[in-house]
């Protein structure tokens, strides 16, 4: 039942409530009316009967006093005028019936009615105001000279009462039916006052949630709770609408910010969009340099009289420092009292002097660093609300991120530019140096050749013609000249790696290796060396330089031989980036601490006499490999042998999986 009522529409609920109330009130008042009427009627009847009894008592007192039953009977017979009287008795004080009277109708009108004894009637009359036989009993004492000489008992049938009750109840039923009908129609009409606006509100709510149109508003029609409800609903819609717009604008800000990394381009568009959210007469963004304690105006629009224009730098005031850097709180001040500004926010004085009265300053915080402030100003007093402050704070977070990113971007850009400049400078000086070395070594060749030729000529012609010291001195001079020539030659080769380079092109390594071995034929045979190789791939390389590389590495392997006859093996293996070549020997090996040093130009591990060489060979190797975009390194164990590794880019045409195992011998 309760459940049914709970789920009922309010329209129905109101009707039910109104009807229930009307029925209850009507029933209760009808009941009260009927009861009251009955009691009143009963009282009146009883009163009438009492009066009658009194009269009879008065009129029969003499008859009783003089024991005259006839006279008493005669008096009683007067009751026949009242058809409702069933019985009347006069009872003497000792309880004996002196005379009695029975109504005419007693016999036939209600045959079931049992006549009660006078004693019962007296008891009923005295003890009960009402009893359920619907008969009224009255007993009154008969007084004579203040003394009761008997009792008059009258029993009356209040048939009138039942007929009256019937009539009353039917009238009540009729009134009730009529009233209910009217109440139903009235409630059906009146419930519109409450359910109408509710229904309309429900429809508006549905429309809002279906169409997502937050600009809809419900019309307020009364100032009661429904009016409050409508107000609240509209207020809610306004807030949702505002939030909706806010979100759109914030998204727009985000889009603007992310569209470019150049912050200066962002500011203008940012300001234009912020204007849609918050009114301002001046907007500015200041960058705080906490290290140098300065404030730089990064952007400012409106209210020129403030006198702080983009690019201006001011020292950070203690108040600003405390406000923004230490407490990191927003400043929200709207006042016309200059003392308040002077006392609390002296840095706002220029704005105040310019006539600005409402000011919001939000610290811009990025990565827990206060980087600046976003400032909104208005000439109007109390132009801003707490909500504006909140919006300012939230867009402050957005712009702070953008500014921080721009800083980072600028820093990186600067660093990149510096690096590029340095690299270019380095390359230029390197090139100059190479040019110098080439030119120097090339131009040195000519005089050296002359010195060498003439010293050799001197040695041929004047051998044994001068004394032995002279022969020895000439020998030293020839030797030195030859060494110098070799040095210059090697230097020339080294510098040529950079300056006289050819385009990289697919090069068959086997061909190159064979040529190199051919060049080294004398040395190989001299030392009894065995050089083997795996099948070698075709790689992108500068043919002469690759030959030089093989020649230098194999030459070294033969030169730094141990006790055993030199055995050299060349192989290549494919990996993701290209080819890794290895040149393995069984020579004297290199201590690991020298693994890096050996590739530096003019670095020699051994004396000139021990192993001849200029100390340029491996430097040339390194330069060649690097020019090809590869890497060279060494793995070695002293006394056991050395393996040089270098990588070369694969030829573009070459398949990735190249794996043949073929023993080649030269």
């Amino acid at each position, binding site marked *: 039942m309760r459940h049914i009522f709970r789920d009922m529409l309010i329209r129905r609920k109101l009707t039910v409530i109104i009807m229930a109330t009307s029925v209850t009130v009507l029933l209760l008042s009808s009941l009260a009316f009927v009861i009251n009427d009955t009691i009143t009627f009963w009282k009146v009847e009883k009163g009438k009967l009492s009066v009658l009894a009194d009269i009879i008592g*008065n*009129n029969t*007192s*003499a*008859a*009783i*006093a*003089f*024991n*005259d*039953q006839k*006279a008493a009977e005669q008096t009683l017979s007067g009751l026949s005028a009242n058809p409702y009287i069933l019985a009347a008795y006069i009872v*003497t*004080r*000792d309880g*004996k019936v*002196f005379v009695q009277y029975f109504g005419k109708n007693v016999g036939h009108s209600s045959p079931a009615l049992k006549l009660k004894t006078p004693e019962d009637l007296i008891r009923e009359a005295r003890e009960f105001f009402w009893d359920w036989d619907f008969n009224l009993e009255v007993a009154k004492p008969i007084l*004579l*000279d203040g*003394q009761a*000489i*008997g009792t008059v008992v009258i029993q009356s049938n209040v048939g009138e009462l039942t007929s009256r009750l019937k009539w009353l109840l039917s009238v009540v039923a009729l009134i009730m039916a009529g009233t209910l009908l009217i109440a139903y129609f009235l409630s059906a009409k009146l419930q519109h006052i409450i359910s109408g606006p509710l229904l309309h509100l429900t429809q508006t709510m549905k429309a809002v949630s279906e169409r997502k149109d937050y600009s809809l508003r419900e019309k307020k029609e009364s100032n009661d709770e429904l009016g409050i409800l409508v107000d609240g609903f509209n207020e809610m819609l306004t807030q949702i609408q505002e939030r909706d717009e806010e979100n759109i604008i914030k998204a727009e800000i985000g889009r603007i910010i992310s569209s470019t990394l150049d912050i200066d381009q962002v500011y203008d568009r940012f300001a234009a969009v912020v204007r849609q959210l918050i009114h301002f007469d001046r907007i500015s963004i200041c960058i705080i340099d906490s290290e140098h304690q300065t404030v730089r105006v990064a952007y400012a629009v409106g209210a020129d009289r403030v006198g702080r224009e983009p690019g201006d730098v001011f020292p950070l005031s203690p108040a600003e420092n405390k406000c923004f850097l230490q407490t990191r709180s927003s400043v929200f001040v709207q006042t016309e009292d200059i003392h308040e500004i002077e006392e609390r926010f002296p840095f706002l004085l220029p704005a105040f002097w310019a006539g600005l009265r409402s000011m919001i300053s939000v610290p811009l915080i990025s990565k827990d660093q206060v980087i600046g402030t976003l400032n909104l100003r208005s000439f109007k007093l109390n132009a801003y609300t707490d909500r504006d402050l909140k919006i300012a704070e939230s867009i402050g977070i957005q712009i702070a991120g953008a500014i921080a990113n721009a800083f980072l971007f600028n820093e990186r850009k600067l660093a990149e530019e510096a690096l590029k400049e340095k690299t270019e400078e380095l390359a230029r000086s390197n090139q100059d140096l190479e040019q110098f070395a080439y030119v120097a070594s090339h131009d040195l060749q000519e005089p050296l050749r002359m010195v060498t030729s003439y010293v050799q000529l001197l040695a041929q012609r004047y051998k044994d013609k001068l004394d032995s010291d002279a022969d020895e001195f000439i020998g030293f001079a020839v030797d030195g000249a030859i060494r110098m020539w070799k040095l210059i030659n090697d230097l020339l080769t080294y510098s040529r790696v950079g300056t006289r380079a050819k385009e990289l092109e697919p090069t068959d390594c086997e061909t190159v290796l064979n040529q190199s071995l051919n060049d080294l034929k004398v040395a190989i045979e001299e030392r009894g060396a065995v050089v083997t190789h795996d099948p070698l791939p075709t790689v992108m390389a500068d043919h002469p330089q690759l030959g030089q590389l093989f020649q230098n590495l194999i030459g070294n392997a033969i030169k730094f031989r141990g006790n055993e006859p030199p055995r050299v093996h060349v192989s290549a293996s494919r990996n993701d980036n290209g080819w890794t070549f290895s040149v393995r020997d069984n020579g004297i090996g290199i201590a690991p601490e020298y693994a890096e040093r050996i590739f530096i130009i003019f670095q020699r591990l051994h004396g000139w006499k021990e192993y001849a060489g200029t100390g340029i060979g491996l430097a040339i190797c390194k330069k060649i490999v690097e020019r090809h975009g590869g890497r060279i390194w060494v793995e070695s164990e002293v006394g056991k042998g050395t393996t040089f590794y270098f990588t070369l880019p694969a030829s573009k045409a070459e398949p990735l999986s190249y794996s043949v195992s073929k023993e080649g011998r030269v």
Partner: protein
Amino acid sequence: MFKRILGLAIITISVVGVYMPNVCAESSAFGEYLIKAAFLYNFTKFVEWPPEVFKDSLSPINLYILGADPFGEALNSIRDKTVKGRRLNIKHVNHIEEISGCHILFISASERENLKPILYSLRNSAILTVGETERFAQRGGTINFIMVGNKIHFEINPDAAQQGGLKISSQLLKLAKIVTSESRKERE
């Protein structure tokens, strides 16, 4: 039987005071006078004397028995009872001259011979005269006991009462047989 009736009467009167039980006045003299005594007492309740006959509101009602007393012990049943706040004072007198202060005068049948002068002398006095002599009321008495069947009834002469300034309740008149004075009849 007699004793029963007597006992009953005594109990009734002593308990009820004024009520006369519905017993038939039998020929027994005591029963008859017991009833008559009660009637005498009850008459006082239905008769109004002019106020000047009482000294004050507490003065007794004087009931005098003139002549031979037929009541005997029966009068004891009403002796010293009160009516309307007045005590009932009973006294026996032998001569009409002794009746000063009297309110009810029961004239015994023994005075039958002197009735005329007695009634005549009481003609305009506020004394309720009660008798039991034939034609007592017609001759100027106010109330006269008579026997109807075997019941005691009474006659009242309202004129006689009126002449003395007595007011007799209509209720009492209703119960009585109304008679008129002979002399008036004669006059008329």
